[in-house]
């Protein structure tokens, strides 16, 4: 019986060594060491062995069983790890093939730019209000201190609606967002910290103008507002929108509804405001600066027209074309601005 046990041990060793899979190993364990396995059935024969030999044989059988189990456990580990090793090969894919993407949506570059500007100004206490795109002459021109013979009121510059006039004048398609100033001022609630971002309309179309475009307008009116605050707002916008290190400057300009009026420039990001790149003139800017829009201190006549005491309240307005700042920022160099509104998916997908 001792020999039989020894033979079994050798058989187990041989089979375990030869096993090629975990399933095979399982079968070996059942065959030799399971409840109905060979070792168990051999131990049943122990009853026929003389009593004095039983402890020794019993111990041997246990030893063989333990050795067998250890052997199987060891083999199982090695089989498992080699199986993981093999996965790298058996389940290999071409990782340069594309992934499966979710459907990809895009917001229009105008929406993205409008949101960015809005959030910059909301952070310092401005609110956004919707005012009419189609409005009365009073709001678009008259109350903005633009005299009746002002060129902007000619019908080759501004669109008019086919609608009867009222005591507020003709019905116009607003050529700027400044009508929002009048509506906001007429509420007589101060302080005013308004943003008006809206579609505007002018009778011009070429590579740099579309008859429909978007303007942004900020208005701050309160007691004690002065030019230092406007400069602060513009510098703040320059670095928030265009990035750290960018600054603004104001230069004299002329608008009817502000006095003084300013042209607003932003320092050029390409030449760092020097106007020179590698000893050559910067191709992006005019002598270190990029024109961005207009600004000014609200004209006393505008306050007067809206019934606001211009001795008590002062304020400023500032604004620019959304299309223009989007182009200035994104590095979007389109040859023809009309592409913004042609809805070619090949354009829209890029933003």
């Amino acid at each position: 019986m001792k020999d039989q046990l020894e033979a079994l041990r050798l058989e187990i060793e041989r089979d375990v060594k030869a096993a090629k899979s975990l399933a095979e190993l399982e079968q070996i364990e059942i065959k030799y060491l399971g409840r109905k396995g060979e070792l168990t059935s051999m131990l049943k024969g122990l009853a026929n062995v003389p009593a004095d030999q039983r402890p020794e044989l019993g111990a041997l059988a246990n030893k063989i069983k333990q050795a067998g189990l250890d052997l199987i456990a060891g083999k199982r580990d090695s089989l498992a790890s080699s199986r993981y090793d093999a996965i790298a090969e058996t389940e290999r894919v071409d990782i340069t093939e594309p992934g499966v993407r979710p459907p990809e949506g895009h917001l229009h570059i105008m929406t993205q730019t409008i949101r960015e500007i809005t959030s910059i100004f909301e952070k310092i206490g401005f609110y956004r209000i919707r005012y009419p795109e189609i409005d009365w002459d009073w709001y678009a021109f008259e109350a903005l201190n633009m005299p009746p013979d002002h060129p902007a009121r000619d019908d080759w510059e501004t669109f008019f609606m086919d609608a009867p006039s009222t005591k507020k004048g003709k019905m116009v398609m607003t050529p700027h967002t400044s009508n929002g100033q009048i509506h906001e001022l007429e509420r007589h609630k101060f302080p005013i910290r308004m943003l008006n971002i809206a579609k505007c309309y002018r009778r011009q179309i070429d590579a740099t103008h579309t008859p429909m475009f978007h303007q942004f307008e900020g208005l701050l009116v309160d007691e004690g507002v002065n030019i230092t605050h406007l400069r602060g707002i513009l510098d703040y916008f320059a670095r928030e929108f265009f990035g750290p290190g960018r600054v603004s400057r104001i230069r004299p300009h002329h608008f009817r509804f502000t006095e003084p009026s300013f042209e607003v420039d932003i320092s050029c990001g390409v030449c760092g405001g020097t106007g020179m790149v590698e000893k050559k003139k910067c191709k992006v800017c005019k002598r270190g600066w990029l024109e961005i829009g207009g600004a000014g201190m609200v004209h006393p006549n505008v306050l007067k027209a809206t019934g606001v005491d211009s001795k008590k309240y002062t304020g400023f307005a500032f604004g620019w074309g959304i299309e223009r700042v989007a182009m200035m920022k994104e590095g979007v160099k389109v040859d023809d601005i009309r592409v913004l509104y042609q809805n070619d998916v090949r354009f829209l997908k890029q933003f």
Partner: protein
Amino acid sequence: MNLLVSYDWLKEYVSLKEKPEEFAARISLSGPAVEKIIPQGEELRGIVVGKVVKLSPHPQADKLSLVSVDIGHKQPINLVCGGTNLYVGQVVAVALVGAMVRWHGQGDLIELKPAQIRGVKSEGMICAASEIALGEAFPHEEREILDLGKELGLANNPPLIRGAGGINPGTPLADALGLSGDVVMDVEVTSNRPDCMGMVGMAREAAAILKHPFKWKEPVLSVSKSKGKKAGVKVTIDAKKACSRYIGVRINGIKVGPSPWWMKRRLMSAGVRPINNLVDITNYVMLETGQPMHVFDVAKLKGSEIRVRFARANEKMMALDGKTYQLDDKILVIADAERPVAIAGVMGGEETGATAKTTDIVLESACFDPVVVRKGSRKINLQSDSQLRFEKGLSQLSPPSAMARAIKLVLELAGGKVVGEPADVMPTAYKPVAYSVTTDEVNGLIGVEVKKTEMIDVLRRLGFKVSATGKHIKATVPWWRDHDVEMGRDLVEEIARVIGYAKIPSVVPIAVAPRQTDQVIQWEDRLKDSAKAAGYTEVYSWSFVSEDLLRKASYDPKNLLHVLNPLSSDWSVMRPSLIPGLLQAVADNQEREKCLRLFECSNIYVRNDGQTSGPWKDLPDEVPEMAIMVKDTEDDQPWRTAKGLLEHLFENFGISDVHWKRISRDNIWHPGRSAQAYKDNKLVATVGEIGPQMLETFKIKSRVGVIVINFREFISLAKVSKAYVPPMPYPEAKRDLAVVVDRNVEYGEIALSIRRADPRILDVQWFDTYEGKGVPDGKKSVAMHLTIGSPEKTLESSEVDGVLNNAILACQEKFKAEIRA
């Protein structure tokens, strides 16, 4: 508008020490903006003055000469030249190897290389004016070379050029012409400052800003108080409101000819082509003073009188540009006894203009109404440098000094004699205006303290007459700022800009927003984000569309808002819906994209019939709307994709239990595949497919799923915050059920009946509808997942079967349904 300013020329009127770059930087911050700086004479590099010392015929060519030219070297250089006007002693322009020339004045600039001409070596080229960009200054016959001595008057006058002793052989041509070292600045002048559309005004600004001496002494036109009795020309102003002043001066016996180089050079620096001395003088005076001038040939004036009046119906005039213009009673003209001879402030007439034969002239210096000039010019579509100045508004006091200057120049350059006195007609007297401002107002607006003495100093330097008492500063507006300065506030600008905006500190006024951002804007953003996340791309279409497009989309243009003066018929009606624009976008992109998912969220425009629900009671309603379209060539049920997205949006924004209504017959929507979502009797959205007729109209080849969200209703129902419902504590059972019902029975009714059949049916989810083999004609099989459970305990299998049976019974009872195994 822009003015080209030669820095050298500007220095005639103001002492300037700054380098052009410094000057430009400083001036731009306080006054007109310098946009570009263009160095002068660069194109003449490598071209020098030479003197012909020897001439001999070319051995191989009749029309060529061999020329020895002294260019200041030890030995003359030898050249071959085809000029017909060569002579020994002639002073010429010699282009040396490396210079850029334009052969025979045509084609591109070419770099000059050493050449052999018919076997003879040529070390350079004697240039014709047109070969070195001077053709406009020195017009010449073909094959004539530039005779510098003659053109610059070197024979008579000892040559004078800056810093040098004279023009010698070898002097660079740019030096000889006085161009070296000069720059031309391209300056943007804002529309309120026509006074800066001339060198004098620009110099006045520079003097005030840079605190340098202003050198211009305004010439005085002397007129006695004879009321025109001794005037050399008869002037009558009929249109008294449109012409506030007209000065006419007659000069007889002048001689028309080319202008001297100094004047040509000034004109060319400003981008104006020299013509002859008379025309050049009018342009020169305009560029110098900003006051447009005109000159008439007396011989061509009928009745030798001048009338300022509006044109009569059917009058015509050929202008100096050679075109004939049809005039009318809105167009102001200068007329002689019979007909218009100039469009006032815009352009003179061809017939009465000065020519080479002119001997007697009338000079005009006048002040026309800016609006009349602008409207007239727009009406006949004719622009000019003169009109651009007048339409900005010039002063009634501007004409006399310009006239005095012009007379002086005519007598100097063209000779002649002034006849009688100037005719100076002014229908109304000039009244200077004065405004006041307090030092508190100035400092309050600027935000930093400026000394009163500095305020006064700035205003005086700008030409204001200033008096001050206590905090009050009173300033009389100088005539050249007549239309610009309108109130005390304008004085603040003058002070602030001259001191310099860069000196004003920058302070960010931070606060808490005193008002909330508009709800509609916030919801637009949320819905746009949802659509983008679902894979949709946003488009922006024009707010105005064509009547044609709207007719295609079955709208009656009569009920819509029309643009009175559209740019074209493509953009003539305000859109009443976002659908036409989106359909157009689908049509335009369909060939390239298998799958299109597009949306737009914007305003549509509705005529106000007196019952607008918009915020502006007397204006058209600008209604916010969102429209979404999906097209996929592989999907023949895009309505389902659209409806799924709409359901997603409803769920996302807390709009539950909407009621779906089938859409009645419609031209846009598919009659069998479209539905409207109602909630509390309000139409929230419409969803479905575009009808086949509309697809054909837009030439769209696949089915298009579409959603239109009525924004105002959607917002009124939508919620951002959500209520929490705890999940069932016990396991739920899932069972599938398929019922065969009549084709017209709708899933919604079946689901509702099942839900009502037993409270333990927690959810019903459709997963398939089948018609065809195995299902009788006129019937369909609807398959659903049922979720069954109880909040009290885990249901036994037999209990679940009981619940399912209740569902089956309900279907049998209500729809005579048969159960599919």
